């Protein structure tokens, strides 16, 4: 299975995302923001980082890069897309996911090993988990506070579109402890924590993050 990892100017965790894809058993494929070429990949990861230096708004400029037009079109026909941290911000700016990520409530960048509860174990990116499973994955962001209008939050909760939620403390003041959300069809997922940093015992606080990458490989096999 070929999983594309997009590099925008200022992407930082693209090497990590590619490694995670490889460790999960997939074939990572580098995608360049300036090309209109998805290289026939079976799914796409938008990695973490500071695309365009977070200038204007985090993710705002990257969301308008040439390749994102192709990603938006492909997502419309069911291509699985995962946005991690800055990638989540890009997906919100591109209109693929609802809500916005704003400055952390305490105004600090914060990096810690974060408890998460998997609220939806039936999306393209979370099917390796069980409903309600608690996992530990690093979180690291300065603008990771998920916000949306109350009515929108109620609707997201009602439709079951909150994918992961912070437990053991909310690191950035996100509304309703939301760490990640999904599209209506469960194919596009965005989350602030970094599953690609929890894929090896040697370097991560756990290997819980691998589940996001094995999930998409399994769901692609199931679809094939």
């Amino acid at each position, binding site marked *: 299975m070929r999983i594309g990892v997009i590099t925008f100017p200022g992407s930082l965790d693209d090497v990590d995302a590619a490694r995670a894809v490889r460790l999960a058993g997939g074939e990572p494929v580098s995608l360049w923001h300036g090309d209109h070429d998805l290289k026939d990949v079976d799914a796409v990861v938008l990695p973490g980082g500071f695309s365009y*230096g977070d200038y204007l708004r985090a993710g705002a400029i990257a969301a308008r890069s040439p390749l994102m037009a192709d990603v938006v079109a492909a997502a419309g026909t069911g291509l699985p897309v995962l946005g991690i941290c800055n990638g989540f911000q890009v997906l919100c700016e591109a209109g693929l996911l609802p809500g916005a990520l704003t400055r952390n409530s305490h105004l600090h960048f914060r990096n810690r090993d974060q408890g998460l509860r998997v609220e939806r174990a039936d999306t393209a990116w979370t099917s390796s988990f069980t409903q309600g499973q608690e996992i530990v994955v690093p979180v690291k962001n300065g603008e990771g506070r998920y916000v949306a209008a109350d009515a929108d939050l109620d609707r997201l909760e009602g439709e079951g579109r909150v994918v992961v939620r912070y437990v053991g403390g909310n690191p950035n003041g996100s509304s*309703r402890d939301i760490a990640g959300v999904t599209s209506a069809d469960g194919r596009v997922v965005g989350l602030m924590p970094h599953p690609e940093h929890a894929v090896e015992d040697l370097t991560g606080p756990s290997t819980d993050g691998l589940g996001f990458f094995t999930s998409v490989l399994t769901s692609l096999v199931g679809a094939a």
Partner: protein
Amino acid sequence: MSADVTATPHAADGPADAAVRSMPDLDTVERAAQAPDTAQPFAELGLKDDEYASIKDILGRRPTTAELAMYSVMWSEHCSYKSSKVHLRRFGDLPKSDALLVGMGENAGVVDVGEGYAVTFKVESHNHPSYIEPYQGAATGVGGIVRDILTMGARPIAVMDSLRFGAADAPDTARVLPGVVAGVGGYGNCLGLPNIGGELLFDATYAGNPLVNALCVGVMRHEDLQLAKAEGTGNKVVLFGARTGGDGIGGVSVLASETFDAEGPAKRPAVQVGDPFTEKLLIEACLEVFAAGLVTGIQDLGGAGISCATSELAAAGSGGMRIDLDAVPLRDSTLTPAEILMSESQERMCAVVEPDKVEAFLAVCAKWDVLATVIGEVTDGDRLTIDWHGERIVDVPPRTVALEGPRYDRPMTRPADLDALQADAPPSSSADLRADWLALVSSPDGADKSWVTEQYDRYVRGNTVLAQPEDAGVLRVDESSNLGIALALDGNARFSRLDPYTGAQLNLAEAYRNVAVSGAVPLAVTNCLNFGSPENPEVMWQFAEAVRGLADGCRELGLPVTGGNVSLYNQTGDVAINPTPVIGVLGVHADVRRRVPTGWRAAGETVLLLGETRAEFGGSAWASVVHGHLGGLPPRLDLAAERTLAQLLTRFATEGLVSSAHDLADGGLAQAVTESALRYGTGATLRVEGDPTAALFAESGARVVVTTADPAAVRAAAADAGVPVTELGTTGGDALVVEGLLELPLAELRTAWTGTLPALFGSPELVVSAVPAGTVPTS
């Protein structure tokens, strides 16, 4: 008064217009020869009378305004090392090391770590800018050292920071510290470099003069090494990266080379402003042009900007160089040629490129949205010439700018107060061991540093094996072989204040031990020497003694010094900082999976102390925190014992004999076991023999606490090596108990240890979860 709306706005002028308008005032080489007696503001630029006279001797005429600007920045203390060079020669006299591929004098030293990999690492100060503008000062400190590493041809892979501030509760510390931490984090995080460790210490002598020392480490294949050299007549000089602006003009000559005084003018414009996004693009573009073989020489632009890069490239090569200064892309078209030469605008690099490779070079830069401009070429003469709109404004022998600056063998005197200080023996008996223990671990120096380290990304790139609060940062270099490196930075200034010769060696010993504790074999040394004014003979003596100590220590441990940085004039008025030689040691892990962490995870393991404890309290954290005392002599140095201990620790790691190891340093055994216990919430019951104050709080060197499930094997290995072993007790429980002396519940210790920095600098509270599990409908 109303604005004159009919006038042409200045900003609408093109650079050419602005230049032409200013041409009548342009100080050309020709004019300098014709008008030799024109008064020049050399003193304001930081040059002394005799230095100005020797520039005239070199040129056979007075310098032009632009030449004066170049000499003034390049002959500053910061760039020329004019007060320190005569002492730093000691490092060059150390025996040759097979591991050293590139030594002192280049942008950073390069060390062979095996399997065809080379590692380059260096630590550099950005102290003065960080006091004036904490965020940008610290941020550009990180940016500068990262470019040094990049210039060697390496991919930067991690950063560390060694920080010193005034008293933790001083109002100015609350201004400076949060900005510095946010700046180190803001720049490093945005570059995608994990921060793997460092130091944060407080002392009143740093009030008005904080220390911000940033380390960067990079890795490359041996064949990827690049040199800062302009070779090949006709090769093009390409300036790439950010545009040149008016920031940082005179940063090195004014900020880093003079003492602040309260009445001086505001120096904010002399601090550079960082743009880490541009630097990230610059890194990727550089690595791509290196890989494609498009570069024959490369130099970063840091202190002294274009003056430094062009004169150093030309001085290191065999020919000359011609530069068209008006080709330099500007952020501000009103800059004068001298200002362009002195500007320290960040995120710029200068490359020497063969003519037929220029197109490919520019294409790579365009791919990464990096501005690149040909500004000149290598010539076959021996002069560096710079033109401004066709007029020659600089014509100098480049070596006289870059390499042959003034050198001073400044007068030195042993500080007058040192005998009294050393005779003032520290207290040696605790009235309340429990209270002293809590005071130590809750003191700003001893307290948990998560408030700082949570603001740094330690995960990016996915190769961080150990990071702060471990004794050393450990990185994986090769994913298939698990080859890795370890790095530690240490700089105890109290020891150096009491005896700079021994203090520098104790710092070396501590960093060496910290690398060994992780299981690595120590390989090479870097340093950042932070001292007061070299014009004060007592400070100069401290500096010379510290250099002598470090050189002697490296000789005894068999380690090369790969490079370093000197920061002088760290004083406010007449008050110099405590001498602060910060020492970095690099080690190699043959297999990072064998790394040894500091924390205790399992109950029921045996806790052993390796090394010998003596009642040594001079310069100790206990004497400082509990008694406000600094006096006596620092602990005895025993480098032979350090070496034996390090070899034993490597053996433990290789054979998997210990589950944890933690160096004993500031705060002695009490501090070390507190950190090991709180890491994963595992207590211990311990026994100590002899004088309990010494057992718990003395800071004797060459000591490490280990835990093991196989104490017999550890004892046997230690006996082989001749390292003394004392059994302290057993891990387990939710308290640290020292039998017959005290009991400290971990909860109480944790509160004391973690509360200090948030109480001082504000608490980024976690929001307690309000959404219980199972309340969300699922589809």
